[in-house]
């Protein structure tokens, strides 16, 4: 009995010091830090960041009435600057209406279909990206804080498994690049640690704003693996795992990437 208590104390001391060590030696950083000065400047300056144009149209949509309910987002959520602060830093999360995990885009579409009684916005449409960029902007500087939930824990575990699974004709796992080789050059590109802090991003290569899913899809295709369809559970699992992996890091959406 006493030895059990001792073990518990030792364990507590150990995990405590582990947490401290992690906090002191946190080598995680946003993909922002892997970019050159010109791109960093573009992201820092809201008048130069092309993603801000989408944010503006998202802001306009926020107070536009839609659907059979004739309601705007603002009718229920009032000022996004207040009601949406820190929200994007928590997603994916479980939706109250369905009891199912959704990502931010999925959450917005639930409001479209359930609360506005309007058709869901198409994946990667300017409207959906604009709204999610506008909502994500309200979490700038907020620490990523995934909710504690058993369903999400299961999803994260699934995501972690996919992250370490080698796949595709090139037989590479996400971890091979993002855990084992960050900072190195893959041809011209610096391999980032792969954190989701800045999404949605404006990617110069796309000449467009794109979601985290689109980014993940690009990486999957790069390994010559079969890309999952946009509504596949695998993305939600990977997104949940990536957010957990980035827990505590500051949100810096909307980002700019090469």
């Amino acid at each position, binding site marked *: 009995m006493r030895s059990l208590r001792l073990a518990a104390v030792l364990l507590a001391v150990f995990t405590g010091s582990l947490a401290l060590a992690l906090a002191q030696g946190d080598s995680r950083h946003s993909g922002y830090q892997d970019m050159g000065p010109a791109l960093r400047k573009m992201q820092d300056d809201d008048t130069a960041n092309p993603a801000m144009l989408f944010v503006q149209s998202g802001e306009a949509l926020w107070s536009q009435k839609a659907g059979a309910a004739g309601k705007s987002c603002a009718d229920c959520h009032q000022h996004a600057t207040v009601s949406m602060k820190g929200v994007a830093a928590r997603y994916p999360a479980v939706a109250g209406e369905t009891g199912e995990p959704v990502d931010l885009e999925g959450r917005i579409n639930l409001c479209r279909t359930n609360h506005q009684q309007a058709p869901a916005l198409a994946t990667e449409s300017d409207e959906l990206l604009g709204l999610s960029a506008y909502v994500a902007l309200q979490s700038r500087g907020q620490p990523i804080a995934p909710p504690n939930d058993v369903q999400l824990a299961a999803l994260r575990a699934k995501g972690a498994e996919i992250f370490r699974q080698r796949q595709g004709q090139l037989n590479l796992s996400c971890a091979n690049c993002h855990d084992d080789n960050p900072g190195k050059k893959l041809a011209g590109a610096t391999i980032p640690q792969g954190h989701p802090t800045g999404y949605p991003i404006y990617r110069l290569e796309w000449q467009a704003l794109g979601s985290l899913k689109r980014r993940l899809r690009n990486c999957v295709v790069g390994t010559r693996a*079969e890309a999952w369809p946009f509504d596949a559970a695998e993305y939600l699992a990977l997104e949940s795992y990536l957010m957990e992996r980035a827990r505590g890091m500051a949100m810096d959406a909307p980002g700019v990437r090469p």
Partner: protein
Amino acid sequence: MKRMLCALLLLLPGLASAQQDSMPSLTGKPGDPTRGRAIVANRSVGLCLLCHSAPIPEERFQGNLAPNLAGSGSRATPDQLRLRVVDAARLNPDTIMPPYYRVDGLTRVARNFQGKTILTAGQIEDVVAYLASLKE
């Protein structure tokens, strides 16, 4: 003592084949180093420069995830280079170098690449001929 050594030697062939470090020609014909260079340089055919650098100055963006290919021909024989390109995992199970001439043991390969090797046998021979020509 001697008997023990003999017993050990008898065990060796198994060991040697598990860790074989070379492979004979896939086609029986010598490859073409000029074609091999073009394959190595091509980002969507050889993909080598994603990870490696090589003495191919006209390609500006080269990777640094892997050793520079300059001098490959001084460090290894053509048969050793061939095994490396065919399936580097046979030398290092944790390698990130893709298996260029293997179709089994892969997961979720995209439909358009299923059942296909990254390079053909002829292309492998061209690449090996190019690598072997890189002497230091």
